[in-house]
């Protein structure tokens, strides 16, 4: 399945696989099975990811929390010492825990990044509604996405206006007061704007029904794709259960 084929896949299938993979891989206990999961995710990304460079860049950014785990867990978790540097004792259990988190986190993110790389928010909203997500939540998702750009634009204008008046960010009360005022103004404008939006919707006959015009059709290949992905995930879970129970 290439990136083009991924683009043509029903977004419901992509979301189901992304969610299923996130939950199944989170449940893994064994390092070997987690490593296998990461290898499978990397192969999947190699075949399907539209742009490898941007995927790796995003993956690195998403590893900030994993870095925090590496910086704190190996020397704070009690266990068998395997490395001693001065007063710092690195435990085997701590290193294994950090390693497990790294493998699982990157496997889940690789799958998520690959599956959602080509998906637009409108498609995602439609897919979530068809997957029986509450209509109000879908409404909230699409409206929040729509107004992020508007509010970001307004914030940029305020920043430019402040910069033109010689404002420079530094650790001082003046900076905090200016940021507080700018954000306060943004909140006032946003709430006023939301009232105008609702009035405009009422004028156009909005009565609480929210129609999405994008049609989604599940084809045979989408069903095969979801079934095979869930089969692989089930195999990983079974393997993990076997390895953990038998202490292989």
């Amino acid at each position, binding site marked *: 399945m290439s990136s083009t084929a991924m683009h043509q896949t029903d977004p419901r299938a992509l979301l189901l696989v992304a969610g299923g993979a996130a*939950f199944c891989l*989170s449940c893994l206990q064994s390092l070997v099975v987690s490593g296998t999961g990461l290898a499978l995710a990397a192969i999947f990304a190699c075949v399907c990811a539209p742009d490898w460079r941007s995927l790796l860049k995003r993956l690195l950014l*998403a590893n900030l929390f994993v870095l925090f785990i590496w910086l704190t867990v190996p020397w704070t978790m009690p266990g068998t010492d395997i490395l001693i540097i001065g007063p710092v004792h690195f435990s085997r259990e701590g290193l294994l825990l950090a390693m497990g988190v790294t493998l699982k986190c990157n496997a889940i993110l690789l799958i998520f990044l690959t599956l959602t790389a080509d998906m637009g928010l409108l498609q995602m909203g439609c897919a979530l509604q068809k997957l029986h997500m509450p209509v109000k939540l879908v409404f909230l998702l699409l*409206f929040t996405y729509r*107004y992020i750009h508007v*509010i970001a634009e307004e914030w940029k204008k305020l920043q430019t206006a402040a910069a033109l008046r010689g404002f420079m960010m530094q650790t001082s009360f003046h900076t905090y007061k200016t940021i507080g005022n700018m954000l306060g103004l*943004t909140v006032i404008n946003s709430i006023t704007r939301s009232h105008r939006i*609702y009035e405009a919707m009422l004028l156009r006959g909005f009565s609480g029904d929210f129609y999405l015009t994008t049609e989604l059709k599940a084809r045979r290949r989408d069903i095969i794709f979801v079934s095979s992905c869930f089969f692989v995930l089930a195999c990983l879970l079974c393997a993990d259960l076997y390895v953990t129970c038998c202490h292989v």
Partner: protein
Amino acid sequence: MHISEGVLSPTVLACGYALTAAGTYLGLRRTDYSRLVTTAVLASVFFVASLVHVPLGPGSVHLVLNGLLGLFLGWAAFPALLIALLLQAVFFRYGGLAVLGINTFDMAFPAVLCHYCFRSWLGKAGVVRIAGAFCCGAVSVAGAAVCTALALAFANEGFVTSARILLVAHLPIMLLEGCIVALMVSYIAKNKPELLHFTQ
């Protein structure tokens, strides 16, 4: 700080989703479409504010503003934060699908608590209002840090010290957030005081 994928145990993930589902259900039930537009726009403000980096000492931190969202929205902060965090996961890969439940609960629960504890302070004038706004900003961030630390500590005993470090690291952010929310509320009180008279 958002917890990443692969860190928490299945039990903690399931608890996070159950609690967030309950909060979101309550939030959506109490919100009609007229308030839902305001909720969406304020969720966008939360998203944009999380990109604002404020200088603090030699580095900088980004704002959270979950307390402010809770103040204006009450229980609707749950769906608003759920959507904002889903968008952050999609665009910036902060958090993820499996941890969305627990990350939403960590942010939204303290926000709702602050709504009920401090909203009456904001209708009053002078120092009480400023103190209420400061407490709202600071307590919501502190609550979020405590919930995140508890989730980590319950997931694995190896994360207990990491959870403690996380809590201590949030102390300056807590104070900064309190100051910024106090200054924001003071600006709103001067220019649009009717926004601070909460009736819900």
